[in-house]
């Protein structure tokens, strides 16, 4: 039960941070284009051009990267066919 509550809280945090990201995306793109950003509690707590770099930055700030929302901010015209 304890695990389930913790995991539900984590999903709710992810949901809130994603909503914040989507509603502020254009402004975030202007500032952080071509960078990874880390979001926690609706705040950008780190940014770095590389994945390894942002993981290192988060660890230096005492954050566990497994529990933080990390996004790469692509250029507006970036397209990829999967």
């Amino acid at each position, binding site marked *: 039960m304890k695990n*389930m509550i913790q995991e539900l809280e984590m999903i709710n945090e992810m949901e809130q941070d994603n909503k914040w990201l989507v509603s502020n995306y254009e402004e975030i793109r202007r500032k952080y284009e071509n960078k990874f950003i880390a979001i926690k509690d609706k705040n950008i707590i780190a940014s770095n051009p590389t994945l390894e770099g942002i993981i290192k930055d988060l660890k230096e700030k005492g954050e566990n990267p497994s529990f933080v929302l990390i996004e790469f901010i692509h250029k507006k015209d970036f397209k990829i*066919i*999967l």
Partner: protein
Amino acid sequence: MRIYLTIKEFGGGPKAFALFTLRSERYRIFGKVEAFIDTGSPDTTLGMKDIRTLHIPIKSLPAGAISYVAGSTTRLRSLGNVILYFKDENNEPVKIDFPKIYVAEPLEHDEKTLRIFSTIPSMIGTDFLLFNKFSFYFNPSERVAYLKSLI
């Protein structure tokens, strides 16, 4: 039961992302994951971002098939059984014991490939939809998407 999805832009268009937690008892892995629903992929696969942030010991996982992701050659490796938690429309946790999830290891190591690969999110493939008997609803113009259990 429905699991609502978050619609975000990726790769030039809207994608429907599931937000969940992943736990592997065998490899002592636990953390947050977001993965978009990719009906073009047969396998549910963790991307490089989640491989790195979850500290997945990629080289110690059994090697599987060669696969192609975004035009790049990758080797799939199986993380085996994982426990995933999602949230339903009533804010209740949904536990899914999923028998096999993959990680994609790029086999091309040039800087450009690795850089693009590091930005591709994890993907939920048709194996996940079939295993759970989920249907997938996606209406990008209304910004609504969900997985619906057929059981």
